[in-house]
């Protein structure tokens, strides 16, 4: 598989080292250094109170906080008539999580700038929550994010759904920081500018979102067939299918009753990319057909990035 494709699908951005010597993905990375990390008891109220929190990761993030919020604001823009949609916010979150990888391709001899590492960390939770929201129902992609609720209701949602508590650490962001980022993702913090180091252009962002959409579609079809006990002969057996690290892939299997058609929910109405529609239409056929559409489509998107 193409190296970049593998890096995106296997979520390898988490292993990239930033200028502070920290892996972008912190504990999720193979390069996480526990000896160089200060864990404190989470001071924030709610389910995460008292649980281990990574204070070392938070410190550099606060240093570039304004730049970080400004970048998110610039990415989402002002949105349409009713504001930034859930899909628009999701697209921005995916751009933030992919930015370190794209930067590394464009600057192979440089370490990841602090701003991009911080963006990755800050947007990671949003990428998971927003992809979960998209998959939850038809039409969510077109809904303005601010229509779902305000900052306080978003925090309540995160708390009630236990999104802030991880396997061994909790989210380190304060309620105020999460609220500010939510405002930025929903287009309520206008006037932001992209960070200097943020990879320029939007073509790569569209390509990354398309690639992730294809990946999730593939997994939805695979999982649906598996649930029906159908043969998987001819399907690829990549690591991301059985041990998905990417937060967006976790949302695919997080709720019962997912079907391949749910992949269309990842896109605004009328904007579902053609290969996704073709894969869904072929989901009852032999794997060779799905594999062929998938392979061709991902290479088309990769060509746009390169």
């Amino acid at each position, binding site marked *: 598989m193409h190296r970049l494709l593998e890096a995106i699908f296997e979520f390898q951005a988490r292993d990239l080292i930033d200028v502070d010597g920290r892996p972008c993905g912190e504990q999720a990375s193979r390069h996480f250094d526990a000896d160089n990390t200060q864990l404190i008891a989470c001071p924030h109220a709610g389910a995460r109170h008292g649980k281990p929190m990574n204070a070392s990761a938070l410190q550099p993030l606060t240093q570039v906080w304004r730049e970080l919020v400004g970048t998110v604001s610039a990415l989402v823009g002002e949105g349409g008539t009713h504001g930034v949609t859930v899909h628009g916010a999701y697209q921005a979150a995916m751009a933030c999580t992919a930015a370190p990888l794209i930067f590394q391709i464009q600057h192979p001899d440089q370490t990841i700038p602090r701003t991009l590492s911080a963006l990755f960390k800050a947007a990671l939770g949003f990428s998971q929550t927003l992809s979960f929201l998209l998959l939850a129902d038809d039409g969510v992609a077109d809904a303005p994010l601010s229509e779902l609720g305000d900052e306080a209701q978003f925090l309540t949602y995160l708390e009630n759904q236990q999104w802030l508590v*991880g396997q061994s650490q909790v989210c380190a962001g304060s309620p105020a920081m999460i609220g500010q980022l939510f405002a930025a993702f929903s287009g309520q913090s206008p006037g932001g500018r992209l960070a200097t180091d943020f990879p320029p252009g939007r073509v790569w962002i569209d390509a990354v979102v398309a690639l992730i959409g294809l990946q999730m579609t593939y997994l939805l079809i695979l999982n*649906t067939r598996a649930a029906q006990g159908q043969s998987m002969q001819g399907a690829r057996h990549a690591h991301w299918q059985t041990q998905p690290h990417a937060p967006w892939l976790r949302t695919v299997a997080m709720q019962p*009753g997912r079907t391949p058609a749910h992949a269309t929910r990842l896109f605004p109405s009328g904007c579902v990319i053609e290969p996704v529609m073709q894969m869904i239409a072929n989901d009852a056929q032999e794997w060779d057909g799905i594999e062929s559409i998938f392979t061709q489509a991902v290479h088309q998107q990769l060509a746009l990035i390169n």
Partner: protein
Amino acid sequence: MQRRTFSFASLALMATGAGHSAQLADNPFEAIWTHRIEAGVLIVELALTNRSKKTVFVKSDNAFNLPNTMQVSVGTGRTRGDTMARVIRYEYVNLVLLPTQSPVIQSRVMPLSPYRGVAAGAMVNLGQYRFTVPEEFSKSQMAAYARVQTAKGELTFQTTLN
């Protein structure tokens, strides 16, 4: 066309407790659970036996083909212990530790041949599932949940682990 409206509350993770499972009225199986803790790892084993002791033929067109999908989850039993269903890969089973922290606290993929050892017999061994249980759960009453998808519906089984 009028656009639908949503809220965070309406899109919250679906609670799939009562009403989710289409329990077979004539559930022919009985679950046999065993569990133990070894070096901090909770090991849950599950086997099914058919009550009639008749042979269970496992074929794709059999009413009780086992198990196309399989979920075993462990939770405290205090809240929504069986909230999450995991899609099961062919010959693999996804394991989830639930429920009082993040939606996915632990997820494991272990090999499980849907038809292995089930060709004919009164008992179906559905394998061994390992969970690393957070310390704060160790004093709680814990429960294990299993869902088995059959051609006619879904069977659910539950046991307490204390």
